[in-house]
């Protein structure tokens, strides 16, 4: 009960940090989509690029989060505002699932359907927008969902470099050895992760081709 009381007493803080958290996750996931989906499409159409691109995204994924934040800190423009840095790092982490699922989704489209479309005289861009992307949409979105859920968790680390978000509560709680404070960050973060999973999952199901 003392946790709930604590939450109530600090509800404006919790709310502000939740919004900040959402902002970090939303923006980085959006950036990762803007970069990752075209990249995934590209490597699906030009397979010779798929190894280097996926390998790079894989390597990025293996860098420990805190280390990546620390590495990026001295970079001139980025380091000046820690949230920029956090968004860049989160974007990099979100790339792999999005690129990989876009690649798999496009490759998974029935080749005979694409060829029929091409044979009927669809241009390459018509094929992409009317056939390949709609049919790959649910697979691509499941990549976005994975990326968003990972980001919610990862974004708590952003507090270590002062980028804000719900990680601040966790950081403070650890310093104060106060579980209520830790939970005030962890519980909303978990709820955010579930919400992201649920909402993108819902969209994914709606876009699944019959």
């Amino acid at each position, binding site marked *: 009960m003392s946790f709930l009381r604590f939450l109530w007493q600090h509800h404006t803080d919790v709310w502000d940090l939740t919004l900040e958290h959402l902002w970090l996750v939303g923006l980085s996931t959006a950036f990762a989509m803007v970069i990752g989906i075209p990249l995934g499409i590209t490597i699906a159409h030009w397979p010779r690029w798929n190894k280097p691109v996926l390998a790079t995204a894989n390597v990025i994924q293996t860098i420990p989060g805190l280390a990546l934040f620390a590495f990026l800190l001295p970079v001139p423009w980025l380091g000046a505002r820690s949230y920029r840095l956090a968004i860049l790092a989160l974007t990099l982490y979100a790339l792999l699932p999005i690129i990989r699922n876009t690649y798999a989704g496009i490759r998974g489209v029935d080749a005979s359907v694409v060829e*029929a479309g091409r044979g*009927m005289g*669809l241009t390459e861009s018509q094929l992409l927008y009317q056939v390949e992307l709609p049919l790959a949409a649910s697979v691509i979105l499941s990549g976005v969902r994975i990326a968003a859920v990972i980001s919610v968790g990862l974004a708590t680390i952003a507090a270590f470099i002062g980028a804000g978000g719900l990680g601040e509560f966790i950081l403070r709680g650890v310093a104060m050895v106060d579980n209520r404070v830790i939970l005030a960050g962890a519980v909303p973060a978990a709820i955010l992760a579930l919400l992201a999973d649920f909402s993108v999952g819902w969209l994914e199901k709606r876009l699944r081709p019959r």
Partner: protein
Amino acid sequence: MTADAAKPVIEFRDVAYRVGSTQVLDGFTLQVEPGEMLVLLGRSGSGKTTTLKLVNRLVTPTSGQILVNGISQDHGDVIRLRRGIGYVIQDAGLFPHFTVARNIALVPKIEGWPEDRVRTRVQEMLQLVGLAAEMASRYPHQLSGGQRQRVGVARALAADPAILLMDEPFAALDPLTRDELQREFLVLQQRLHKTVMFVTHDLREALRLGTRIALMEAGKLVTVLTPQEFVKSKDPWAAAYVRAFGDGLESAANRGAS
């Protein structure tokens, strides 16, 4: 009909197609006359499908020329060319996320027909291939194989192309449905007089549908015969084909009798 009656609609001039060191097609010369149904007959891997795809440029020849309506396709606008050629493949290749109506409307729509003209055209096409009007709002997965194939034919005919390419369109159907569609397609063709190239490995289908049969083997054109000539042909490949089907029919009949 756009083509002059004297001129072939499709003409292959010494066409070769090679992938790496594999000679898929070699020294292929053939003329397809207006309004005829030319059947490409041959076993798997004989180059029938490749031949068909050369016409709508899904495949580019290594050497030689292909003329469509007297125009060489080397420098032409591929998209224009394809929209003027109907294309039907096995399993129809319908877009699974499009309704039947949208599938049929595909080429008219990308050609920028006005909305109401597209709508009436879809209804006409459904009627033409013997599908009920309420099928328009269904999705391909809600149809039977035969219905899907009808939609495939409707889609290919929607923009009224003079040429139709059909790649084993009825091969995946059960015998009864296949028979039905073959019969209906013949009736349709008598009305529409399209220039058709039809790929099959089924001799019975070839004999039934073709005005001429072009027999292919290992990337080469063996001979071109009318169905009547084909069954009596002394050509070893043609005779082998007739024997294979004749024997098959006989043994099947024998099994049924015993």
